[in-house]
């Protein structure tokens, strides 16, 4: 029993089955990421002035990732072209290149970007305590220049001042995750000592009015933020702010899609030769269909990158 039009095109539609199938699937993916992007717009429009952060993501690294995905998109379509022209060795070369580029993308994201975020710390200052931290926030300066108000002090968490059983002490931290551990041990956090980012180190410097291109490492300047002045504080985790929540949601889902695509490509790389020997045109179609999926994932990133990293 043969399913018709798995390889040859149906005359009236001009398509073979899988081609139609993948475009339909991609249409549903448009709606999936559309739902998330519409949530992004909704949340950003509803955010209070000053509560939607900018410049917290590493633009050069993001640009690099974008170029990597663009390159992988090119390599897969070249792989398909090679396969159509029965240049099997070239096809495998390009397929391998695509897989490697995809893996590099994930490594950069999961091995560098996400962990770097988890090490970065931010505290939102209560509205009534803003004046106390004017040195770090520079709200008068911001107001005079018509910039958005600043409510957050960000940087790397050096030490915390804790209290337990009436005794205070200072504890050096290796990562913000230690804070939760200390709390679980019964310590009460009294103050955070943060090695602040450039904006908080020098808020009235016009250089810091807008996020710069190169990702700024935190400075040496330590600012102490008292727990009683804090609205909320955490590392740059999903719960830190709406911005990070939607950032992790979209990039996380996108990353899962990259992984899915890579699994399919790896399967083709190791097991594709059987079908190629039997029916090379069908193999070419499979690669085309997988390639279309991969291009779509690239297309989503083409929007994710500017929306989160640049705007």
């Amino acid at each position, binding site marked *: *029993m043969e399913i018709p039009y798995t390889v040859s095109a149906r005359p009236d539609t001009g398509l073979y089955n899988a081609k*139609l199938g993948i475009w339909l699937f991609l249409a549903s993916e448009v709606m999936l990421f559309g739902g998330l992007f*519409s949530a992004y717009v909704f949340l950003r429009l509803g955010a209070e002035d000053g509560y939607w952060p900018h410049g917290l993501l590493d633009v050069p690294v993001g640009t690099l990732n974008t170029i990597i995905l663009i390159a992988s998109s090119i390599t897969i379509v070249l792989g398909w072209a090679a396969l159509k022209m029965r240049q099997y060795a070239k096809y495998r070369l390009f397929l391998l290149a695509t897989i490697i580029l995809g893996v590099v993308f994930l490594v950069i994201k999961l091995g560098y970007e996400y962990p770097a975020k988890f090490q970065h710390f931010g505290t939102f200052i209560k509205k009534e305590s803003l004046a106390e931290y004017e040195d770090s926030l520079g709200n008068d300066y911001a107001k005079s220049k018509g910039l958005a108000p600043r409510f957050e002090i960000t940087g790397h968490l050096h030490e915390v001042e804790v209290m337990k059983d009436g005794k205070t002490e200072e504890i050096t931290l290796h990562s913000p995750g230690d804070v939760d551990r200390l709390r679980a041990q019964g310590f009460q956090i009294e103050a955070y000592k943060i090695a602040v980012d450039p904006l908080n180190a020098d808020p009235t410097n016009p250089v810091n009015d807008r996020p710069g291109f190169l990702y700024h490492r935190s400075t040496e300047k330590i600012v102490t933020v008292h727990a009683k002045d804090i609205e909320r504080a955490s590392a740059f985790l999903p719960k830190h702010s709406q911005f990070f929540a939607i950032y992790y949601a979209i990039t996380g889902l996108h990353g899962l899609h990259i992984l899915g695509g890579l699994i399919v490509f790896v399967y083709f790389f190791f097991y594709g030769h059987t079908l190629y020997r039997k029916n090379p045109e069908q193999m070419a179609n499979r690669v085309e269909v997988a390639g279309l999926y991969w291009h779509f994932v690239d297309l989503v990133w083409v929007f994710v990158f500017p929306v989160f990293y640049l705007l």
Partner: protein
Amino acid sequence: MAAPITTSAHGDHHEHGHDDHHELGFWQKYVFSTDHKWIGIQYGFTGLAFLLLGFCLMMVMRWQLAHPGEAVPVIGGMLRAIFGETVFGVDGKGAVGMLTADGYNTFGAMHGTIMVFFGVVPVAVAAFGNFAMPLQVGAPDMAFPKLNMASYWFFFVSCVIMLSSFFVAGSAAKSGWTSYPPLSILADHGPGVHPFFNGQTIWLLGMVFNITGSLLGSVNTIVTIVQLRAPGLTWMRLPFFVWTQLVTAFLLLLAFPPLEAAGFMQLFDRAFGTSFFMPTGLIVGGAATAWAGGGSPVLWQHLFWFLAHPEVYVLILPALGMVAEIIANNTRKPLYGYKAMVGAIFVLGFLSFVVWAHHMYMTGMGAKVAAFFQTTTVLISIPSVILITALLLSLWGGSIRFTVPMLFATTFLPMFGIGGLTGIPLAFNATDLYLHDTYYVIGHFHYVVAPGTIFAIFAGVYYWYPKASGRMLSETLGKWHFWLSLIFINGIFFPMFLQGMLGMHRRWYDGGATYEGLSHAYSMGKTGLEWNGFMATSAFLLGAAQLIFIFNFFWSLFYGKKAGRNPWDSTTLEWDTPTPPPHGNFDKEITVYRGPYEYSVPGASKDFSPQSEPPVGAPAPASASH
């Protein structure tokens, strides 16, 4: 289940590179089958089992409403043993098995979820769509058989996940099938409940798997209909059921993903403490919550209803399709207004994407937004009316045979009519302000789904059962099933309109008994609560009536009258196969020569002209070449 999927016997030996014709083992034939007919049957069994479960949940709820604070008799102890103490407590008199407030909410939320996503959609869309649609288009199988199998297993996994949620600490999801935040995010948190394996989080996981299975299935459906139609089967010769499956698949394909996105975000809110849907400044139990806030509960409602409104058309369209097939077959004449009906379902499908906020009139939307959604909602009633009117007019001048499928199909029309007409006050913002969240709404949507879609499902089962199993269901038992179901289902749902108009609120575990004293004078001193006893009795009797169907279903598998190729003398392609159809479906080359409902054609030798029968004088088609 005696539906052997045999590989066709053939003696040709031409060079072929397709699947080997070895006998498939048990696992490949019955568990991991890629044959659309068996997958349809798998969906059917699973779906019908969940419909029964959802019905039982409802019966316990009806007991509670009719006898608030009283333990369920006889089986109370057993229920407490199965569902746990959160759900079934001890009543005032010390009897075990009283549905607690949390338990009522749990059963309510799961009743809705199970009926919609695990009952009606798998049966009406997946079971009938998988079984009948490829046969009706003359295809050897679905376009992607392995993907079809994967879809069923995604669905099956989602079923296991959902069922497991009853057995975790805190029991299953209890924030409505609509899962509105902040309640759905706050629920199932705290001491005694696992941070991840709790009812609501498991509900979200189960929905993600269910949605994935659905999406893959809809891709398969659309590609099959577009690409695998037999030669001669042009668009306007398609059986109406196929059209409805096509539009349904589009609705599922494009509307489900935003809910998946929203479910993903709600998972984040619950698992990672984000505040996509949590508003600022929420105080629960006198204390601020752990969530930072800044989110919007209304965002969830928008994303949820963006799916859930097209979802209700997903529930009704296959039903309309089945009813149309059965009416044409049992009136022995073509459908009236076939072209108009096809146009109507496309308009309906399109409009269904722009009406969703009529579920949200009470969220503080301004006049412009409300006016927009009112307009589109009223507009969408036009294609619905076209469809029902066309089906009604199809009866005119027909030579009607009241077979059991026809009984259910004709009853569908006035029942759906009541459901549709009672939707009109809900479409208008002004009247909806009063009726929102009352029993009127419950009555409205149940009329469309229960005596609507579910009756159509019964009609479909009685109609296609002979093709799947080779035996007829008993007519006598079928008629008893029909009449009893009709009477009792109206007994449950009609009083709901009265209760709703009296202001009785929905989702209250004691039915509003606490607020009995607040009835207004104009409701003649009545609260609507006095109907609960009558409705509960109707529910139990309706359940009893289904036992007739269940018995009939299994008994006829072995002792039913044997059915031939075409017991209903129908014209569509699925009846031109052996009974039951083998792997590959057809035993000859299929070419379609005429439309789907060529009944009582003047001058023809019999009162029906099958689609694949060659015109008089043409050569007979060749045997299938494999």
